[in-house]
């Protein structure tokens, strides 16, 4: 079977990635279909439960640009998580997770690093963002490249190795053993997106960090409205 699948692997991966994105976009539309309420219930509650962690992370980094950072982190996390979970599906071709094909983790890592630069440019201005890349140490540019490499290799190594182990186990003992391997696969499938997002967040927090200027200090530039869906803590009674 391996020989017949191999030449079509890129198309399968693209199709699977499209399936994952469609499901995620559908879930997003379903969660925001009804007008958002101050006290969430039902689907809105579930969606806010997922997003709250990213909003907290983003607020810790820079309270002014929560709307910029939180969706970025949440998108990365949900896309990688849903892609990893494909490996658990009992459908022959659909069960190839896109993250087990090196181009996809590499693309995600590039998006993460270049997106970090772009966000840094939009928060601090283009000149300051570019200066941050080479000042005070020009080797930071090399650091950014190695971030891309380490993020992508880590994701690919974990998920790809999992798929390899599952295939070998299925060859050795077709009944019973693959179930155990799949159950063990759940651990990297959950931990890797968390790690990817956390590392992106930690790179972002140095890139977005503003030097306290004269007078303004580190004050947030835009205040969130208490009723807006992104201000979870502020709308809640302590």
């Amino acid at each position, binding site marked *: 079977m391996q020989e017949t699948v191999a030449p079509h692997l890129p198309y399968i991966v693209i199709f699977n990635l499209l399936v994952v994105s469609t499901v995620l976009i559908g879930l997003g539309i379903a969660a925001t279909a009804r007008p958002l309420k101050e006290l969430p219930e039902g689907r809105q509650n579930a969606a806010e439960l997922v997003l709250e962690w990213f909003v907290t992370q983003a607020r810790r980094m820079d309270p002014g640009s929560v709307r910029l950072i939180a969706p970025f982190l949440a998108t990365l996390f949900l896309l990688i998580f849903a892609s990893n979970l494909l490996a658990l599906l009992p459908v022959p071709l659909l069960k190839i997770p896109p993250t087990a094909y090196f181009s996809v983790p590499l693309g995600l890592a590039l998006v993460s690093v270049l997106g970090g630069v772009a966000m840094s440019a939009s928060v601090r201005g283009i000149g300051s963002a570019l200066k941050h890349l080479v000042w005070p140490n020009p080797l930071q540019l090399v650091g950014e490249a190695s971030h891309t490499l*380490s993020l992508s*290799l*880590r994701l690919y*190594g*974990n998920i790809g*190795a999992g798929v390899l182990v599952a295939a070998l186990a299925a060859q050795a003992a077709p009944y019973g053993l693959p179930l155990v391997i799949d159950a063990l696969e759940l651990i990297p499938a959950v*931990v890797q997106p*968390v*790690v990817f997002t*956390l*590392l992106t967040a*930690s790179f972002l927090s140095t890139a977005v960090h503003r030097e306290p200027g004269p007078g303004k200090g580190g004050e947030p530039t835009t205040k969130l409205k208490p009723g807006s869906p992104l201000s979870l803590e502020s709308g809640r009674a302590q």
Partner: protein
Amino acid sequence: MKEILLVLIPTLTLVPTAVAAALAMRKISSAALEGMTRQPEIANQLFTSMLVSLALVEALVIYCLVVALLVAAKV
């Protein structure tokens, strides 16, 4: 000779790395667990930091895996 190299290269590359990574991970996770039991209120924060540190250690093993695979493919 080729078969011997094919066995030796990944083994000699990966085994020392895995041992070193296991020692590092032991230290990271035991320190994190101690911190969590001492201060359960910041357990979440410590857990995320622990995951990041473990991932950084794990990345080194994966680099070695990739290098071992590349070298083994050349042999």
